[in-house]
């Protein structure tokens, strides 16, 4: 059974000091069901992506809590929380997609939410996606692990720190026109290059922030979708996993989970990498976006740098990437990011992206957990 997205909604991303966990997901959820034109009582199930409400808020059991505060307690629908680090949102999307594709449910909501600014050490919690006993014990954090891959890749294929900077510059430029983005300002290559190192060769301005935010989408079977909207966006979704610790991976220059998830998503959607018109990628670090160009098949291995140097992935290029601003500039609300990416692609395919609008019929989003041990690829078609 084909699955369509019929409604999308997003809170603002950023440091939302004045808002609580409950307020931000409610905002996103209400926007999504209003956009879909459904009533709350039509929702048959809820899937929530959230990485670490336990460490960030001391609050577990958040799927039921969200259903409760979203006014769904009287309806008693199944509410499921899924976790795959910063791919939690993508995983909620995938589980919701499977629930509809299986025919069990006709209308479901997939949401992602993270509230990170209520505690101090957001980086330490975000880095818990890496192997605590054999990576973090040695003093590695997420930027350090990506830096180890980046150095090898840059040395092997001639990548420069300026190339990485171009990714940040592009994504900041795109975020200027995104009302929900955390950093709606342009930055220059020089600013990126002059920002301090956090893990050489990665600098502060190569890194996505860790943000508060929530996003929600409404999924429906094709038959139901057609009743509610003239512009359903059909999706196919696939997930893969890999060794968590870098030291166990045979090829450090390829994210195998990305390759596998992409291959399966392309197969299900009956498209290839060349058919993709727009993509939202997981630029938790600028280097990651370049590696993902290659592992998704947008460029040959080692040629990812050419796409950013030649402007192919800018708005106006052949394959705009991260028109939202990406994780770097729209913000990275960990468990919300995978759904936030879906919101952007759906808005683009419906021609509702305002000044960021590009001409696109087939979209792709890639949500990654940690350093690539989980990858979820979703393909969207009008």
């Amino acid at each position, binding site marked *: 059974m084909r699955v369509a997205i019929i409604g999308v909604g997003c809170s603002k991303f950023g440091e939302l000091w004045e808002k609580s966990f409950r307020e931000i997901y409610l905002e996103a959820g209400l926007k999504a069901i209003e956009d879909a034109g459904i009533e709350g009582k039509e929702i048959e199930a809820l899937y929530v992506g959230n990485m670490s409400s336990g460490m960030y808020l001391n609050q577990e059991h958040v799927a039921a809590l969200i259903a409760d505060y979203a006014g769904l307690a009287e309806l008693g629908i199944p509410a499921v929380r899924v976790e795959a680090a910063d791919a939690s949102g993508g995983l909620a999307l995938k589980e919701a997609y499977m629930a509809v594709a299986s025919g069990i449910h006709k209308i479901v909501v997939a949401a992602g939410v993270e509230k990170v600014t209520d505690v101090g050490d957001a980086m330490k919690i975000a880095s818990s996606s890496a192997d605590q006993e054999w990576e973090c*014990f040695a003093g590695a954090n997420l930027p350090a692990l990506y830096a180890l891959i980046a*150095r090898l890749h840059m040395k092997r294929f001639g990548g420069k720190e300026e190339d990485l900077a171009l990714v940040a510059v592009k994504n900041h430029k795109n975020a200027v026109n995104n009302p929900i983005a955390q950093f709606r300002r342009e930055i220059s290559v020089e600013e990126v290059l002059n920002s301090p190192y956090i893990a050489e060769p990665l600098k502060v301005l190569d890194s996505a922030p860790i943000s508060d935010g929530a996003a929600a989408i409404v999924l429906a079977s094709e038959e139901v979708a057609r009743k509610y909207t003239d512009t359903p966006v059909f999706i196919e979704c696939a997930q893969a996993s890999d060794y968590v610790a870098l030291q*166990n991976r045979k090829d450090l220059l390829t994210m195998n989970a990305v390759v596998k998830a992409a291959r399966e998503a392309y197969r299900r959607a009956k498209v290839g990498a060349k058919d993709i018109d727009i993509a939202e990628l997981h630029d938790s670090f600028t280097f990651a976006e370049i590696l993902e160009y290659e592992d998704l098949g947008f460029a040959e291995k080692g040629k990812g740098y050419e796409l950013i140097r030649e402007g192919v992935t800018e708005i106006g290029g052949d394959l705009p990437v991260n028109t939202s601003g990406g994780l770097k500039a729209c913000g990275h609300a960990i468990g919300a990011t995978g759904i936030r990416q879906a919101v952007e692609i759906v808005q683009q395919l419906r021609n509702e992206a305002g000044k960021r609008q590009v001409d696109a019929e087939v979209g792709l989003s890639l949500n990654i957990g940690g350093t690539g041990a989980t990858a979820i690829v979703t393909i969207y078609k009008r």
Partner: protein
Amino acid sequence: MIPRFWRKIKYRYSLRGTHCKNCNSYFYPPRDLCPNCRRKGIIEEVNLPTCGRVLSYTVVWGEKGSPYVIALIELENKVKILSQLACRPEEVYDGMEVECTFRKYGEDGDAGIIYYGTKFIPKRGDGYVSKE
């Protein structure tokens, strides 16, 4: 966190990994199940080579005790290990030969447990004197 640390002391205090006799693969950290052979694998504990070379490295800033060097090291039998290098950031380079040593990693406050484990240092014998 202390029980978790104690359970792994044997593997943290020396370079002890596992080997699958069925497919001749070595693992660090030690694994009880071979990812190639799964239940057909025959796992045994082994000592790993104590020398290797730096595959990739990074200098970490902004963390406690930083700047410090994190490296992916390829041991002489091709097993990869992620470890801290006990050397100054400007000393490390690609392909640098290193050997394992035993160092302090951190502590739980002033009165808490002190964590020790394996770190690597530039290989001795070429005039290197550790600064730590």
